């Protein structure tokens, strides 16, 4: 049976009797004509009585039908779908895929897209509850689907009966938008994962999202999934929850720079701010807090549209330990990406191991002076000068970097310890000298490219002095350790004179090309400083001495001190950067298993109303506990707390940030979406006007069909009326003339 959107208007069908009434009234409103030739009129009437009666009856029926069709059209009747007609009572399964990525928190027109989407979910369920057919309901949030450990969705195939609407309403009230950047792909895949590919129910999928350019401008993997829905006769409704683009400014990144960090040592925090709008912004203020205390704000004088501006925030911590830095922008369309958090580990000092092959340790003394100049200059570095055998007799993990200076040879155990140290992320620097033998370096340290040393050596060479030559002896590249000299006239570097060095195989072996980088060359083009990555760590080799024996760089040239401090910062930073944690990522802490208990209590950010959770750490081979918090749900600073075996406790803060790309609020409008989703059968309706899938719920809307039927009826009525003679002819046909 058809259903009607406005059933009260069905009373209007009584109007269909009006043509009969008009006909009856006309019977009493005849024009009277005295007539002589009645004979022929009566003959005509006698001959055509039946036919005329039938035609008039047909005309009357057409008029009554036209009025009835008009009234029915106004009631918006709906005919059950084909499935509904043949399988009356077939259940309808409403599957709502709800975008809860944080871009849905965009403020627009006094409300958030998230709130509008939740209201639409309620409307869908409420309208479904009015249907006479069995209805089931599933609600899958994007963030749920993206998190493999999240378990089942909030609502899965629940019958829309009883107190379902109340439960849904309560659930939606408690539901907050996530801080993830989860996309629609996992949610669409979740349909099959949780509900199966095939179903006897009639499925309707509602995709309530903001349709940002990422990923909808180029749907990629989404399109086959959506086409699959079309193929399986699943209704698809795309419901955009945002109707216009708004500019947005986001903190793209915040992290310490590559300098040495230690208590009392000033360093910089690199911050990047992105303008996702189309207009430039002036005087963008970045508020800075360190350990909850406000620090001087950073002012960015101009932020061009669609660009990211990087700047540096000066920072210094007097005390050693982990410190939390937070930056914040003024509020705009999306609040979450105006914040960014960073945890800075500031040790009291950085121990550095200097291994000198010479008994006098002359080279180590020069280098030590450069790393810890003394006086008012605080570098945070604590150089320790040792002999080569120290390497095999002690653990090296506590040193931030190790320097080998003019070492003649090393024991195999020392080489192994060094390789383990570097492979684990340590930094190693090698200075050569007269005690070094090329054969040892090639056989033990280079080992055909598999060892620590970056290049094979051929032997010592002297750099001939040419007084007419104006080119400096040392020519550096744009590498972090020399970057401080870039863009300036390298006055000090230009005075460096190299008299002797170790030559390398020229050209370098094929295997070395990909992993070895030449950081500086001599005047004659021979490599002077080379680098290679080994495991997670780095090895930098200077093919000359750290002392003044083969060059004058170390003696009184300020560029040596600067370069060595940059080198130390570079070496102490792991070669493989740890990816900053984003919302939804797993958080991992490691701590000494000998000192602490395995139970870890995770305290979420204090600003977020989330209860702490506890996990059990697992013992690792290296004697540490590893504890993991799965899928950090919000941004901010988490704290992993664990108890010490002696009654004390330890903790580690961890910063979790939102994905800054989600703050890009560009929209894909209806036509662009239609072009991108060509071949996908769907309906597109803004959330403001979207109510529910009328066609699928109640069948096909017959309004259009009735409109066409009405037009056809009116045309037919005119033709029949002319045929019957209800309309005056345009010209009177002459007849009967003699």
């Amino acid at each position, binding site marked *: 049976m058809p259903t009607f959107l406005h059933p009260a208007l069905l009373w209007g069908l009584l109007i269909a009797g009006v043509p009969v009434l008009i006909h009856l009234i006309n019977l009493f409103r005849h024009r009277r004509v*005295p*007539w*002589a030739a*009645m004979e022929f009129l009566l003959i005509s009437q006698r001959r055509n009585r039946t036919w*005329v009666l039938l035609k008039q009856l047909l005309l009357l029926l057409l008029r009554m039908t036209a009025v009835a069709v008009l009234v029915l059209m106004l009631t918006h009747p709906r005919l059950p779908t084909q499935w509904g007609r043949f399988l009356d009572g077939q259940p309808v399964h409403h599957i709502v895929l709800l975008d809860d990525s944080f871009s849905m928190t965009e403020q627009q027109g006094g409300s958030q897209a998230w709130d509008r989407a939740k209201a639409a979910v309620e409307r869908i369920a409420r309208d479904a509850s009015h249907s006479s057919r069995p209805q089931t309901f599933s609600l899958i949030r994007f963030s749920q689907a993206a998190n493999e450990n999240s378990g089942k969705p909030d609502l899965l195939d629940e019958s829309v009966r009883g107190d379902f609407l109340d439960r849904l309403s309560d659930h939606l009230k408690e539901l907050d938008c996530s801080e993830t950047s989860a996309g629609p792909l996992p949610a669409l895949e979740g349909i099959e994962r949780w509900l199966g590919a095939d179903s006897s129910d009639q499925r309707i999928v509602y995709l309530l999202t903001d349709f940002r350019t990422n990923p909808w401008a180029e749907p990629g993997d989404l399109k086959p999934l959506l086409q699959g829905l079309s193929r399986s006769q699943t209704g698809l409704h795309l419901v955009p929850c945002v109707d216009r683009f708004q500019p947005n400014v986001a903190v793209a990144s915040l992290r310490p720079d590559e300098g040495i960090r230690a208590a009392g040592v000033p360093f910089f925090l690199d911050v990047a701010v992105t303008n996702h709008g189309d207009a430039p912004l002036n005087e963008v203020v970045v508020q800075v807090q360190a350990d909850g205390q406000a620090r001087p704000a950073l002012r960015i004088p101009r932020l061009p549209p669609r660009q990211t501006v990087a700047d540096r925030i000066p920072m210094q911590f007097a005390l050693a330990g982990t410190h939390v830095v937070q930056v914040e922008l003024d509020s705009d369309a999306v609040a979450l990406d105006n914040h960014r958090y960073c945890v800075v580990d500031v040790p009291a000092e950085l121990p550095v191991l200097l291994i000198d092959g010479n008994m006098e340790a002359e080279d180590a003394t020069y280098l030590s002076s450069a790393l810890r100049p003394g006086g008012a200059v605080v570098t945070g570095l604590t150089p320790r000068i040792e002999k080569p055998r120290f390497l095999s007799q002690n653990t090296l993990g506590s040193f931030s970097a190790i320097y080998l200076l003019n070492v003649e040879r090393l024991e195999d155990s020392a080489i192994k310890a060094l390789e383990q140290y570097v492979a684990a992320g340590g930094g190693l620097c090698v200075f050569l000298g007269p005690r070094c033998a090329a054969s040892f370096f090639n056989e033990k340290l280079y080992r055909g490219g598999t060892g620590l040393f970056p290049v094979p050596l051929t032997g010592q060479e002297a750099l001939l002095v040419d007084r007419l030559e104006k080119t400096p002896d040392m020519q550096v590249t744009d590498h972090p350790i020399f970057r401080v000299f870039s863009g300036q006239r390298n006055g000090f570097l230009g005075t460096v004179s190299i008299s002797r060095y170790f030559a390398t195989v020229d050209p370098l072996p094929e295997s070395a090309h990909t992993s070895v980088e030449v950081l500086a060359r001599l005047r004659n083009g021979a490599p002077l400083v080379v680098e290679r990555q080994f495991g997670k760590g780095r090895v930098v080799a200077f093919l000359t001495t750290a002392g003044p024996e083969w060059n004058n760089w170390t003696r009184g040239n300020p560029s040596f001190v600067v370069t060595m401090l940059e080198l130390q910062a570079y070496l102490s930073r792991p070669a493989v950067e740890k990816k900053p944690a984003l919302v939804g990522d797993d958080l991992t802490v490691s701590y000494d298993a000998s000192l602490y208990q395995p139970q870890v209590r995770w305290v979420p950010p204090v600003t977020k109303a989330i209860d702490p959770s506890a996990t059990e750490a697992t013992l690792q081979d290296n004697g540490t506990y590893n504890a993991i918090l799965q899928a950090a749900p919000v941004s901010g600073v988490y704290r992993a707390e664990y108890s010490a075996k002696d009654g004390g406790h330890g903790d580690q803060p961890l910063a979790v940030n939102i994905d800054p790309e989600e703050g890009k609020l560009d929209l894909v409008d209806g036509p662009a979406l239609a072009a991108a989703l060509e071949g996908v059968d769907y309906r597109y309706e803004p959330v403001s006007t979207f109510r529910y899938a009328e066609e699928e719920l109640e069948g096909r809307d017959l309004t259009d069909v009735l409109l066409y039927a009405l037009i056809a009826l009116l045309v037919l009525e005119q033709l029949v009326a002319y045929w019957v*003679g209800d309309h005056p002819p345009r010209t*009177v046909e002459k*007849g009967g003339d003699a």
Partner: protein
Amino acid sequence: MPDSKRFLHPDAIKRISRLDVRARQIVEGFLAGMHRSPYFGQSVEFLQHREYVAGDDPRYVDWKVWAKQDRLYVKQFEEDTNLRCTLLVDVSASMRYGAGALNKYEYGATVAASLAYLILRQQDAVGCVAFDDKARTLVPQRTRRNHLDSILRSLEISAPRGKTDVYPILHKVAETYPARGMMVLVSDLLMPREPLFRGLRLLRRRGHDVMVFHVLDDDELDFPFDGATRFEGLEADGELSCNPRALRRGYLAALGEYLEEVRRGCVRYEVDYALLRTSQPLDAALAAYLSNRLGMHHRN
């Protein structure tokens, strides 16, 4: 329309209230429009030659033929007598219908008056019978010029009424005027055909030359009505409420059959027939009359 006939149109004639003036206007206007009138100014008309036999008056010997053929022929002439014409005018109720300038009665009366004027002008005798179910007035045949007044009076006083019953009228006319003459019937012929044809046959058998002027209104011929209409019979034929457009085709078919029947009946009994629309110029009737007068000698 020639300028001389401009005043013969019913719209123009309607403005003339007196029937005699109407008649004169029509006849004079009609004659003025003809270039030559071969029918007037001859009292004796040559009919044929016959071979001379003993006893024939030698005055009628055609000496010109004798001179050419050397044989004697005498000329024979048509009898030199006056025409005796009777105008039979239908004044029944059905003649009241008319949506144009003149209704059928007015049109028929004007036609009759015009014919009377024309006939009297030719020094012939004319009489008039106005009838419905019986003879309402009967004016004998006379040749005097002032006889026109009697005829016109008989037409003017006869307001249409009653139902047409034509056979008794024609029978009475045949009895009243036994001498051969011309009978001109002006009627809408909305009457049973059998008595009509019987009456016409009777007149023809009595040697009368018969002319029928069939007067019908445009509405009756075209049936242009639309909208819900109640038709009420003028001669107590009942009434009919209908949508005229629905019945028009059938009406016109029935009318066509009727006109064909009338035409065939007239042909069968050698009755001259002319269908006149009340919107037609009135000289059509005169033209038909004169055409008939030309041919009647050859028919008898």
